[in-house]
């Protein structure tokens, strides 16, 4: 019985670690972006200072805001926290992974997006409506592509439980699977769309016409804004870790011995930093697409993940 | 003085009495009283037949068996309820000046003569007398159709008279051929060879197939005209829409049934002598054609009474199809359909009569907001049409259900045209009904004095038949089914 307790403790610890490390990844990405655009870069822990400042600041609420507006940040943060608890970061045998499998993970993201959009509409300004409407359109097109990519993985590993799937791919060792290649590209494009990165949305600016995600949370301030910013950073981290777990799981700890955990921590940090660099390169090369070119972009993502499934069904299982 | 003689003589004498006193204010009540007496006698006779089995009158002139006993009771009953309805209706017509005192007298006497001829036709054992009664029924209703003396009424009456006359003439020739075939087999010297009981008896099997088939064709065309089967139906919509509504109710409810009864009597003779079911196939074809064509006609009607007369043609087509199919289930369904159709259709014509009086016109697009003006008439018409369209819990649904099940068993692919026809007919009926019944009434539409008792009684009976058919009635139907289709139901 005590091994169960230890496992649960490890899982809780890992979830806290996950949440704590999320702003670090964003800080790293911003820093690399500034270097690439040869601007003076803020320190890597800048996001932590922003969050701390916001938590202390006094909040200003619009006079039309209802109780929903005040509850949405907690719901969004709660959803992201749960999503983080489920994704294996450093260790694989996670008891918490049994709480929610990969489809429930997509459900959490949908829950967070649903309530953020409602918060956007609550104030009754044009920005909230515009952001919510566009965000729902983009997410509507992104979700099928994401699920197709996830299907490829779960059909290969014959499970939707994240930790068991990662363990299966780890045991399988280096196997060249065309379906995984397509699934990787599809998932990456969906991740970019979901985390409102460059081609779909510009996270840095507050320009009315370009922003999707920012438009919904325009009216938030103080600790509510802190919670929401933190949640979006966790979301970016989750997508990054998903890509790492699904396609490059080597080095992740299979048991809770100290040595294995240390190795996997180092491996994960290295992989995430590498992924951050790739993301920044992607963003500096591309410019933000016009809104009604995004469906085409997501169409390609869906096509890639569909190819993934078909190649799995046709090529890999045979018959 | 047997019960049968009372049932027959009362309307005859009533007709003569009303010829003199019909126009008095109490004329309507006398009419109702006479019909009530007739109904009482027929009910007593029916119970007596139920107790002691088929009843052959002394001179073998009249024969009451399981098949026609409930029809006699039904005819008398619907005659009575239509008389109840016609009293206020005709008083309203007289007040509006559309009918003079003389014509009222003619109306009442002809009404009773019409009831008499139908009862005579139902109970006659001699095929010749059966033909004479049918011809007399036509003659008595011709004057009723032209009661209003409008150009259209006279035209309708003329067409009714000529077309039915020609039809009945064919039937006469058919009867002659039957007599001829019987004479060949049973010898010319016996004078009772025209009796149905004799013909249908054991040795009837030997009638010459060729002649009998020929006779059946003439009789089918003859009585088919009276049943209103397409393409011989043209007189029916005109006669219904131009004549007074009580007459339409009785004509549509009863006369068509009597004609179909005669046709089935003859078919029983033909089936006995022919091995192939040729007669049945002819009737099925004729019935299906009428059913589908009448269904389509419903969509293009502008006059409310014409619409319901086409609905009658459609239902008669369905019954002919069922009798043509001949299986025990189909025959049971057809017998039940005859009963519930006449009850529902006469109830509908009662409400239609009051509705047209209330709106002052029979044009469908000018009758509006019935439920709002007079709920009794509005709901009566709506529920009546729902019943006739074949919705449960009313009896028409049960009979159509049985017919469809029988068709699925015998001729599965014929079920498709039946269902398409039912759907098209339903659409036609309800498309016209809805604007009339629902919506806001035109300004100044006042309720009219109406006696909705007949409608309530009829619809209750149909509802009762829909939910559970009483044992004695079902017993009759089963005996009749055994008689007609030769196969017992259980």
């Amino acid at each position, binding site marked *: 019985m005590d091994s169960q307790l230890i496992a649960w403790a490890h899982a809780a610890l890992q979830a806290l670690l996950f949440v704590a490390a999320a702003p670090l990844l964003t800080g790293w990405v911003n820093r690399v972006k500034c270097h690439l655009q040869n601007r003076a870069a803020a320190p890597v822990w800048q996001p932590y200072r922003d969050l701390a400042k916001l938590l202390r600041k006094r909040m200003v609420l619009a006079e039309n805001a209802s109780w929903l507006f005040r509850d949405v940040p907690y719901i969004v943060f709660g959803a992201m926290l749960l999503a983080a608890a489920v994704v294996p970061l450093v260790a694989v045998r996670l008891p918490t992974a049994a709480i929610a499998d990969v489809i429930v993970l997509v459900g959490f993201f949908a829950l967070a997006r649903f309530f953020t959009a409602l918060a956007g509409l609550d104030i009754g300004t044009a920005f909230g409506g515009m952001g919510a409407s566009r965000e729902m359109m983009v997410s509507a097109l992104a979700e099928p592509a994401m699920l197709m990519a996830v299907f490829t993985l779960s059909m290969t590993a014959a499970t939707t439980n994240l930790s068991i799937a990662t363990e299966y791919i780890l045991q399988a060792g280096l196997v060249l699977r065309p379906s995984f290649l397509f699934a990787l590209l599809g998932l990456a494009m969906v991740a970019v769309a979901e985390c409102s990165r460059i081609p779909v949305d510009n996270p840095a600016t507050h320009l009315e016409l370009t922003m999707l995600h920012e438009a919904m949370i325009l009216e938030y301030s103080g600790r509510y804004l802190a919670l929401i910013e933190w949640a979006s950073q966790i979301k970016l981290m989750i997508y990054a870790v998903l890509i790492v777990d699904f396609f490059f799981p080597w080095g992740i700890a299979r048991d809770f011995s100290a040595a294995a955990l240390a190795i996997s921590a180092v491996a994960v940090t290295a992989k995430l930093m590498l992924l951050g660099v790739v993301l920044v390169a992607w963003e500096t090369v591309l410019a933000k697409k016009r809104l009604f070119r995004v469906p085409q972009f997501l169409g390609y993502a869906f096509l890639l993940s569909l190819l993934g499934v078909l190649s799995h069904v046709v090529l890999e299982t045979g018959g | 003085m047997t019960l049968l003689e009372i049932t027959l003589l009362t309307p005859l004498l009533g007709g003569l009495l009303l010829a003199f006193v019909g126009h008095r204010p109490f004329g309507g009540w006398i009419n109702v009283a006479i019909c009530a007496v007739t109904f009482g006698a027929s009910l007593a006779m029916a119970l007596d037949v139920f107790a002691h089995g088929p009843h052959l009158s002394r001179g073998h002139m009249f024969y009451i068996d399981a098949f026609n006993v409930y029809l006699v009771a039904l005819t008398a009953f619907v005659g009575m309820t239509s008389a109840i309805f016609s009293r206020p209706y005709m008083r309203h017509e007289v007040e509006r000046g559309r009918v003079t005192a003389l014509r009222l007298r003619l109306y009442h006497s002809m009404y009773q003569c019409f009831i008499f001829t139908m009862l005579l036709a139902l109970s006659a054992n001699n095929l*010749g007398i059966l033909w004479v009664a049918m011809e007399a029924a036509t003659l008595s209703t011709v004057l009723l159709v032209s009661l209003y003396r409008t150009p259209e009424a006279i*035209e309708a009456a*003329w067409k009714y008279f000529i077309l039915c*006359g*020609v039809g009945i003439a064919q039937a006469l020739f058919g009867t*002659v051929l039957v007599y001829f075939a019987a004479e*060949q087999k049973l010898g010319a010297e016996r004078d009772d060879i025209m009796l149905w009981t004799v013909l249908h008896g054991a040795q009837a099997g030997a009638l010459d197939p060729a*002649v009998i088939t020929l006779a059946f064709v003439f009789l089918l065309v003859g009585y088919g005209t009276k049943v209103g089967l397409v393409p011989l139906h043209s007189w029916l919509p005109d006669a219904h829409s131009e004549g007074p509504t009580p007459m339409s109710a009785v004509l549509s409810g009863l006369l068509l049934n009597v004609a179909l009864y005669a046709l089935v009597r003859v078919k029983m003779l033909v089936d006995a002598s022919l091995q192939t079911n040729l007669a049945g196939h002819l009737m099925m074809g004729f019935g299906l054609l009428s059913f589908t064509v009448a269904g389509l006609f419903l969509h293009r009607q502008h006059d409310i009474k014409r619409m319901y007369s086409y609905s009658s043609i459609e239902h008669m087509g369905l019954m002919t199809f069922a009798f043509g199919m001949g299986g025990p289930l189909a025959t049971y369904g057809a017998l039940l359909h005859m009963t519930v159709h006449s009850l529902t259709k006469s109830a509908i014509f009662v409400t239609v009569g009051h509705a047209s009086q209330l709106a002052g016109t029979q044009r469908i697009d000018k009758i509006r907001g019935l439920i709002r003006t007079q709920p009794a008439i509005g709901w009566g018409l709506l529920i009546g049409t729902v019943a006739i369209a074949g919705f449960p819990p009313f009896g028409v649904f049960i009979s159509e259900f049985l017919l469809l099940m029988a068709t699925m068993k015998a001729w599965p692919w014929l079920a498709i045209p039946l269902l398409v026809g039912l759907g098209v007919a339903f659409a036609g009926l309800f498309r016209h009904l809805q604007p009339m019944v629902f919506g806001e009434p035109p300004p100044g539409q006042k309720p009219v004095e109406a006696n909705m008792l007949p409608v309530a009684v009829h619809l209750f009976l149909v509802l009762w038949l829909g939910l559970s058919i009483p044992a004695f009635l079902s017993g009759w139907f089963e005996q009749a089914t055994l008689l007609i289709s030769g196969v017992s139901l259980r």
Partner: protein
Amino acid sequence: MLAELSLFSQAIILFAALVLLTSFIMLGQTRTMPLIFTFAWQGLLLAVVTVLVAHVSKHPHLYVSAALTVGLKVVLIPWLLHRLSVQLNMQYDSEELAHPSLLLLGGAALVIFSYYVSLPIVHLSGLATRNTIAVSIAVELIGMLLMIVRRTAVAQVIGFMSMENGLFFSAVVSTYGMPLIVELGVAFDVLVAAILFGVFFIHLRDSLDSLDVNRLNRLSEADDAVPLPETISAPPTGTHS
């Protein structure tokens, strides 16, 4: 074949042929008065045939039928029609037929057809008069053709009555007449029908001021516009302005 029949049978066949001839004359006749007279002649010839058959088949009640036929079809109905035509001053009206020759050819075709139809009956019936059955059917069908073709009400009545003649003729010829009770009923019906025709002529006259039946087409639906239902024409909901 005709030779070995008895003289009376030969006479029956002759008069049957004459009855058929009167049918053809009526078909071709355009003026009303001669039409009524020809009808009377047909009734008379029919009565003669009935008497001959009664004599040959020794059926006494046929004499009663013959008397009835003479009373009704030769005297009463023609007189009634004549009086009505004079009263409605129609006696000099005449009616042009569309294409008379085609009509008569049609009549001939009908005779052939009725012969073809009556074949099964003829070879079965043992009666001497069996081969006149075809003629009786022909008379009836021509009567019907007459009703279809002619426009005036009087002509239609004559057609109807000649159909009744044909039926009576077939009854007499094929089964030596129906039982008396039926004969009476038929005669009674024909009489009432005749009276009603008279009553109708007056109504038609004052409602239509002519007896041209073709003008009776108020109750026509052929060219009615099909009422567009609410369902198709009503704009389906969901509009937004």
